[in-house]
């Protein structure tokens, strides 16, 4: 059982790193890029004995209370087998 947690900046929160990355990929010759937003990705190996629902609850709590800052970030949790 594995949790995948995606943490992204809320819409409207300035992302200067994303802007700098956008500038760099444009220098590489990619055009038509409207926006780049940088986020974070976590993989958490969970106790295999947890059922899907409890695994999701646990990962959601981790995402909400540690991995993201609710003032500036949103999160999304996926639970995958193995």
């Amino acid at each position, binding site marked *: 059982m594995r949790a995948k947690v995606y943490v992204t900046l809320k819409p409207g929160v300035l992302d*200067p790193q994303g802007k700098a990355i956008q500038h760099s990929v444009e220098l590489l010759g990619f055009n038509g890029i409207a926006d780049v937003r940088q986020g974070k990705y976590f993989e958490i190996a969970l106790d295999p004995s947890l059922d899907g629902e409890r695994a999701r609850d646990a990962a959601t709590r981790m995402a909400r209370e540690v991995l993201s800052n609710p*003032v500036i970030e949103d999160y999304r949790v996926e639970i995958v087998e193995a």
Partner: protein
Amino acid sequence: MKFGVIVFPGSNCDHDAYHVISKHVGQPVDFIWHRDTNLTDYDAVILPGGFSYGDYLRAGALARFSPVMNAVKEFAARGGLVLGICNGFQILCETGLLPGALIRNRDLHFICEHVQVRVETTETPFTNQLEGGRVLRIPIAHAEGNYVCDDATLDELESEDRIIFRYCDERGRATAAANPNGSRDNIAGICNRERNVLGLMPHPERACEDLLGSSDGRDIFRSLAATLAAIV
């Protein structure tokens, strides 16, 4: 009165804060290791600048889970004075003792320079020896000092007179050009509703001696001492 300076793994302005309290305020001060959980001996605690836990995850995010932080929360709830400087401000926001968050500077650079901040209110234990509107010259040194909060929080901070310092120019005008990091409304420091917890990004402890370019920060610590002298 007794001061404590909390030391997290990665704090690096702890000795500066200690020096200012012992030399310029002339009061007893201890270092408090982040594993300590007893703050009953203290009247004021300082969360110093630095890079606690290497700024891993987010600046201040992991320090929030240090054992001492539960004690800091209880200390603040009892009315103890808490001053968070730079990384200390970030920790106070992550802990929820102060609203909002500090994100990457608008221009991405780590900024290390003297800036001007305006004293927005003297109605705090940390600014009562200053004059309202006075411009202080104090250094900043941070990559994540861009204060953000939602509209409701900003309204609340404004209406409750909880914005304590704003970045400004030499003449005290809080202009966009005088905003070094993109902070909302030029905010450099705020306090909690009970006014006993203050966080600010500038480093007053690095501005306490003329030899270091400015001694404007001294009056913040003098205010703190004057407040305690009246109540302890």
